[in-house]
């Protein structure tokens, strides 16, 4: 039985930005498959229970490709695009994913550990010599993931300022117009097109070089797919990690007892990263919207072909059916089956890399910065970007 009420606007406003919106709990209890109105005025079904969210993410009838159709319901001005890995279903999705899977497996990523540790050490030295308060967001959380993904892809770090500015617009964190998003996308694609031409003249063994090789030698993807893939790897690769890392550092500073626990027992860091990911407000808006390719039923709700479905990862991560005392932040929580990286074929390609970067960043910060480390301002004075795609900190001033 679903509760008949006016369709609420989604994404929900959060009470204090870093805690899950109250509506999630209410909907999980009373209307787990709820009709919501999106910023575009389009309607969607919002799934808030863990079990429904996970089931939807492995359901081939809920299509990402159909959500990229010109007349499909829209969340806002930005969609990844039909030629990106995020906008595809099997078998196109599997074909593209296979090209880079090997670069992102647990073993491959582990091999990057020494280099990431070195980069973290370089960044933390900047933090240590900077005048206090230091903005951990710009000096640490943002710069580390950018350096890692640029190196992995083979994008020159000299161009970081332009590329970062464009990807901020593409992620639409500040609520940009459709026109601005299109322009930024054009700029980034133009940049990558040039870089790809240089790879053709001088082949490299970085990730971009591998994709160019797959295009030119194996005809395994089209030129447009190649460009879009490079764009997604670069933008998502640094934006999601940087924003998740920044929020993770904030969450720990906001729970000093938990931070203290990690100082005493650094072996808890990998588990703490999982809990930080579960708590990550980055996913409060849900996943990319999916469109039903046939009539189907979720719970007791009938969903018609062509209708939009949003699986809320943030709500699933706080489902009391799965997580005891779900709103408590507990770095020792185990098991921790959060869905922050998604689930199913679109499970985050960079999950292992993001985990490793967060683990190293935390450990380096804890080891190198004095244990008097604290937020330099009240938590409720911090500014958050609350655009459509994600929720993240603008800055994180700390002192010690």
């Amino acid at each position, binding site marked *: 039985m679903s509760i008949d009420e006016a369709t609420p606007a989604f994404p929900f406003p959060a009470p204090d930005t870093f805690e899950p919106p109250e509506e999630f709990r209410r909907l999980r209890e009373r209307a787990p498959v709820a009709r919501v109105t999106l910023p575009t005025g389009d309607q969607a079904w919002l799934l808030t229970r863990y079990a429904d969210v*996970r089931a939807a*993410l*492995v359901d*081939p009838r809920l299509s990402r490709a159909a959500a990229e159709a010109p007349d499909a319901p829209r969340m806002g001005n930005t969609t990844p695009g039909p030629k990106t890995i995020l906008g595809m279903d*099997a078998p196109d999705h*599997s074909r593209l*994913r*296979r*090209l*880079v*899977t*090997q*670069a*992102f*497996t*647990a*073993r*491959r990523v582990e091999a*990057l550990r020494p280099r990431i540790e070195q980069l973290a050490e370089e960044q933390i030295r900047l933090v240590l010599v900077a005048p206090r308060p230091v903005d951990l967001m710009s000096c640490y959380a943002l710069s580390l993931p950018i350096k890692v993904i640029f*190196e*992995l892809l083979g994008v020159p770090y000299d161009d970081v300022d332009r590329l970062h500015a464009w990807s901020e617009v593409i992620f639409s964190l500040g609520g940009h117009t459709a026109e601005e998003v299109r322009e930024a996308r054009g700029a980034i694609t133009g940049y990558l097109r040039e870089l790809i031409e240089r790879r053709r003249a001088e082949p490299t*063994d*970085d*990730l971009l070089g*591998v994709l160019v*090789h*797959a295009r030119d*030698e*194996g005809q*395994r993807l089209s030129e447009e797919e190649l460009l879009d893939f490079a764009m997604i790897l670069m933008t998502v690769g640094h934006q999601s990690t940087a924003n998740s890392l920044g929020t993770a550092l904030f969450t720990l500073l906001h729970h000093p007892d938990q931070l203290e626990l990690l100082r005493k027992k650094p072996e808890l860091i990998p588990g703490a990263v999982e809990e930080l990911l579960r708590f990550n407000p980055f996913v409060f808006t849900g996943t990319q919207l999916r469109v039903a390719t046939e009539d189907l039923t979720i719970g007791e709700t009938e969903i018609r072909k062509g209708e939009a479905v949003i699986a809320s990862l943030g709500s699933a991560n706080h489902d009391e059916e*799965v997580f005891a005392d779900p709103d408590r932040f507990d770095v020792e929580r185990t*098991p921790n*089956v959060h869905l922050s*990286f998604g*689930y*199913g*074929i679109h*499970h985050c*390609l960079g*999950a*292992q890399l993001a985990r490793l970067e967060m683990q190293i960043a935390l450990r380096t910060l804890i080891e190198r910065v004095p244990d008097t480390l604290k937020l330099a301002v009240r938590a409720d004075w911090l500014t958050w970007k609350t655009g459509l795609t994600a929720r993240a900190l603008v800055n994180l001033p700390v002192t010690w």
Partner: protein
Amino acid sequence: MGEQWRVTVHKTCRRSGICAAQAPRYFSVDDDHRTRPPAGPVAPDPELIDVAEACPAEAITLTDLVTGRPVTAPAESAAGRGTREVRP
């Protein structure tokens, strides 16, 4: 009796759900959120090789029950994938 494979999901499984989405005939998720392989031996199927290769945790292995050796993609196909030389 033809050739048969055993499918194993190792403890390194990070629950990406990729196998359960890609090959629901073979992989299921139980109430503990653990990924389960088929209970018994299965007939050889190239789809299983694809799924094993797609696992980001490299947690899925296939064993040829006749030879007792791990099943891997044919060399030709692996080279054709063009991903072996990645040195990030």
